[in-house]
């Protein structure tokens, strides 16, 4: 969890706004450090977290979360974290998956045209269980890493947008929980096709979300020390900061997100 990011977003594990849909997007860089931040943030806040890890294995997230101070295996055992390991489930489906061992959640691999209904039902079952289960967890949180991979696997943009809409209706509106989704796009250099999948998905999700965090490389070019910039855009405010994700190896091994400079580009309230 990055303290500086929390201070800029004006949130903390003790107090955060319910019902938020946060969209994290990146172009040509990797914004998954924000997903790790939000994962440890919500686990510390005591929420029931449903994590759809579609591109990496559980041990990858577990290793990083340990460095950020949260143990995923303990959270999973206690029931606070429900983790869908997309890679593991998908292998059963892709290898002659008639008598498949996979859950219904990855049905979209078997038949991409059917959409993400199975995945939504998985989310709904786990998220509803938090409310009715009688445990003392906070509001439910859904984290998706990342949604654009389903486009690579044949699912249509419309189906992905339907999925996020249904999830938002269930998690954010009905249960007053939060949602964080990561979308990875490719920057278009020429506008050859305006129907490019991930751009359309991004535009649709920006319309649905309440806060967007856009991670990009620096506009001036590649720099080794500063990894990129993060812009976040909410209803009234568009802020742009340059960040550097530092890792010091050695006795003091810490991960921190260092904010180099911050500019308020637009503030309609002032």
């Amino acid at each position, binding site marked *: 969890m990055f303290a500086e990011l929390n201070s800029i977003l004006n949130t903390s594990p003790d107090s955060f706004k319910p019902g938020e849909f946060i969209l994290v997007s990146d172009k040509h860089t990797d914004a998954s450090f924000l997903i790790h931040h939000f994962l440890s943030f919500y686990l510390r806040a005591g929420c029931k977290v449903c994590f759809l890890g579609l591109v990496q294995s559980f041990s990858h997230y577990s290793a990083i979360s340990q460095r950020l101070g949260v143990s995923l295996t303990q959270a999973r055992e206690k029931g606070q974290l429900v983790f869908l390991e997309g890679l593991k489930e998908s292998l059963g489906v892709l290898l002659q998956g008639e008598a498949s061992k996979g859950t219904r959640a990855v049905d979209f691999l078997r038949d991409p045209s059917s959409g993400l209904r199975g995945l939504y039902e998985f989310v709904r079952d786990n998220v509803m269980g938090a409310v009715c289960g009688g445990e003392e967890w906070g509001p439910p949180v859904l984290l998706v890493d990342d949604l654009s991979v389903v486009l690579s696997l044949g699912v249509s943009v419309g189906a992905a947008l339907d999925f996020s809409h249904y999830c938002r209706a269930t998690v954010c509106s009905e249960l007053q929980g939060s949602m964080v989704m990561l979308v990875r796009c*490719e920057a278009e250099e020429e506008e050859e096709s305006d129907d490019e999948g991930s751009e359309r998905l991004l535009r649709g999700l920006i319309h649905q979300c309440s806060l967007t965090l856009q991670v990009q490389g620096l506009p001036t070019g590649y720099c080794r020390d500063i990894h990129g910039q993060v812009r976040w855009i909410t209803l009234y405010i568009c802020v742009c900061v340059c960040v550097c994700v530092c890792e010091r190896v050695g006795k003091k091994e810490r991960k921190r997100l260092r904010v180099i400079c911050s500019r308020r580009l637009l503030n309609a309230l002032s």
Partner: protein
Amino acid sequence: MAAPKMSMGKPTADRLPCNTTSFQKKSRSKLVSIPGTRPSIQNGQLIVSTGVTSLDYVIGGGLAVGTLLLIEEDRYDSYSRMLLKYFLAEGVVCGHELYVASALDHPNDILQELPAPILDDIASPKTVEDQAKSCDPESQDAMKIAWRYQHLPKVQTALASSSRFGHYYDVSKTMDPEICQAARCHGFYLPEHSTAVTSPTATRQSPMPETYSSLLNNLQEVIHREGFDGSVPQTKSRNILRIGLHSLGSALWGDDLCCHENPSHGHALTTFLYGLRAMLRSSLSVAVVTVPSHLIQNRALMGNITRLCDTAIALESFRGSERETNPLYKDYHGLLDVRQLPYLNCLVCDLPDNKDLAFKLKRKQFTIERLHLPPDLSETVSRVSRGELTGTAMVGSSGCGSGSTGNRHLDF
């Protein structure tokens, strides 16, 4: 996942165990040492060498076990094939098992053309040691005038890691058949397999064409049978499986990705790569895939393919292009672009400080170097432009000053 140092315990049914306690001292004794691998200095990942030491340096020390390296082929598929052969040759020398799949050449032919290792050069080549020494400022004379710059490293053009990890190969000779026979190799030659594929579920809509499905199934079968996914109890010592897949996405694999701008099976290769990624994460294997990206017209699709791989590099060779005669590139055979580096079990990876890389293939070494623009010392470059400016200005002026042509080479 790519096996971390702590996970060499008893294997569970279908995947490697992960560290469950939050505090565990990283001790080397726990790691079952597999020949040809070493833990990475950055984050403790188990890495193997690609066979080319410069490439190991560029991608952060080596290839992590459980990951996938994507090589975007150059136009004539010469250097990408060379890299694939280096990768397989390194596997033979380290004693790893090999899996080669190709639709064009028979895997046995590929294995017979592997470069011969230079085994008597075990004392590491002088270039590596010299550069390691030249980095050490104490061995130089202390700078008297430019003492502020003393602590900065000297510019290194050739990239090589300082430890001896990986071997050197002589491209002009092929590997001895005896050495090759000693390694266990599994091959997948598509024309042999396509006739044997009988799918009783042919009516079922499959996300992948038969070629990729059969390759994935064959690969899973080999991994499972040989115990790379931990299913076989430890009757023999652990080993790494090196997977080399040549020219995926080309028309020979039954994929029209390279033929049309909007292919009908647009998601075939990406689905296959997703399945391959899942398989690699749960077994002790490393894969290198070459893709003819110059034929793929849809750039977004190439972006999807790159994101599904862990490490991605692209080769562009100068052969046959006008750059071959460009004096800037005269020492090199092509450009190498590192498109993507993986973030595995860590928030940030070691980023290279320079992205302009060029490679050259010499007989005994495939070197990757930083491309330096030489300083522009030619006098004519700036003079001509200035002379032209003064010339045109003088024509319009009322004639103060001497004649325009005479002053062309004078600079005030």
